């Protein structure tokens, strides 16, 4: 099992670069299925991870958001901040499981 503190730091360092520009959203397949609700898109997921780590914010919406991601990586290529969006979501799932 990986050290959770390291994993947390690794994810947080990356997701904190998010500037909320929304350029990742237009390619996300789950955002459309989720009727455009931001929680089903990459920007929402990345920022829910931020809220979880920094403020401990957690409810059903967080899990719904994180576990509906297809890890298809379409969003990652769009991000001008170079955030590994899909990879961070995958790592965050590992974090939650552990």
């Amino acid at each position: 099992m990986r050290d959770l503190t390291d994993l947390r730091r690794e994810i947080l360092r990356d997701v904190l670069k998010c500037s909320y520009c929304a350029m990742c959203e237009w390619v996300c397949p789950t955002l459309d299925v989720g009727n455009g609700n931001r929680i089903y898109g990459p920007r929402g997921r990345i920022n829910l991870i931020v809220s979880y780590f920094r403020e401990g914010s957690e409810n059903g919406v967080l899990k719904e958001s994180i576990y509906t991601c297809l890890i298809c990586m379409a969003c990652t290529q769009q991000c001008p901040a170079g955030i590994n969006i899909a990879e961070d979501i995958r790592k965050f799932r590992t974090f939650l499981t552990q």
Partner: protein
Amino acid sequence: MSDILKDLVKILGNDKVAVDPLTIKLYSKNAVYYEGNALAVVFPETTDDVRRVVKYAYQNNLKIYPQGSASEIVGSTTPRKDGIVMNFMRMRKVKEVSYVDSYVVVEPGVRLIELNNILSRNGYMFPIDPASVKSATVGGAVNSGSGGMMGAKYGTMKDWVLGLEVVLPDEEATVLKLGGKTTKNREGYDLVRLIVGSEGTLALVTEAILRITLAPERVVTVTGFFRELEDLMRCVVEIKKSKLDVLIMEFVDDVTAKITIDTIKPKIAGEGHLLITSVSTVDEAASRVKDKLVDLYAGSGATNVVAAESMGEAEALGIFEIRRNLYPATIKMASLSLRDDEEKPYIFVEDISVPPSRLIEAVKRLREISEKYDFPMTLGGHVGDGNLHPVVWIREGDKDKMEQFNNFVLDIMRMAIELGGVISSEHGVGKVKKDGLVLSFKARNSIKALSIMRQIKRIFDPKNILNPDKMLPSV
């Protein structure tokens, strides 16, 4: 659940109202720094949904904060706890496309990139291309009065909106159809253009009729580096005199070009200030136009000149890479300077314009201001129309730097005014630039314009329920 929220669910149905705090938080931020709060987020799907919510809001003094992608960078979407966010991303239909009459009828939640993907199949385009084209929605772009790289030729949103359907924040939630489908229209005061750039403070846009145009048959692009700004500007003047049909004219200053080259290692590198020029032409003339542009660059002292005869070739050669990476390079630069992994950088993009003939002076003075406040700044802009975008970053929670930032912005705005320019070109006023509005109108001895604007706001929005506290400075 409070009575208000129960009522909203009754009006719209469960599926169109979100009250969960994490969801609300995601709808209370913008693409820079501002974070607000709200009672709920509503997702109208039709004009009638909008109308029914507005009617209820009017009766109950509930504020409405309209929003598309929330990619604005001036605080024009930031909501407060006294109201609800109205997000338009479920109104996403392209209702009509007329190539014969050159217009489209679209709902506000359509992203500009989605619109252009449809139009490009028939060789057409909607020419307003903000760097945020992948996120910007029609409603957001209309209300921000957005512009983009092709501004030198095509202007900004105000030049491309023919008509609007709006819901007024009045007792009846009146629906108005303003403008129409024709380019010529002289039916009284131009209320369409009053709504364009009104930052969601006057009316809710539920449909837009936008002018479209043929995409250029061929675009020739040339880039090169200039040691002195004077040489770059000489090149700009020569190109303007040469009767070429300039589409894009972008500039990145030498310091920024170096930072960007060092951080992102683009395909094209060189030393000095970077100028990119794209010219619209036809297939047969491409080679001739390219040679002419290259000559003009070389004649003005450019080095490392790279030329492309088509947009595809320009992309393959990486001609736009440095200019497009201004913002990412700043994010990278910021990330490298952060002290620990838990810190967050905020990126601020300024947006003044000066008459293009005053650009050299503007760049010099911007550098002095940046040094005065010790803000490492990247700088690029649209030389064609004199719009400059200095970009700086601040560490989250750095209160001293934030306060300095406000003075830094004030100095930049004062400089723009002194050079005969404006304090906001395409990003808007929002919460950040209200002081700038006062400065600008005072400088022109026209402060009464602001009271006229306040009266206009009252006529449209008698109870001040629509996006309050934005754009207009309080008395």
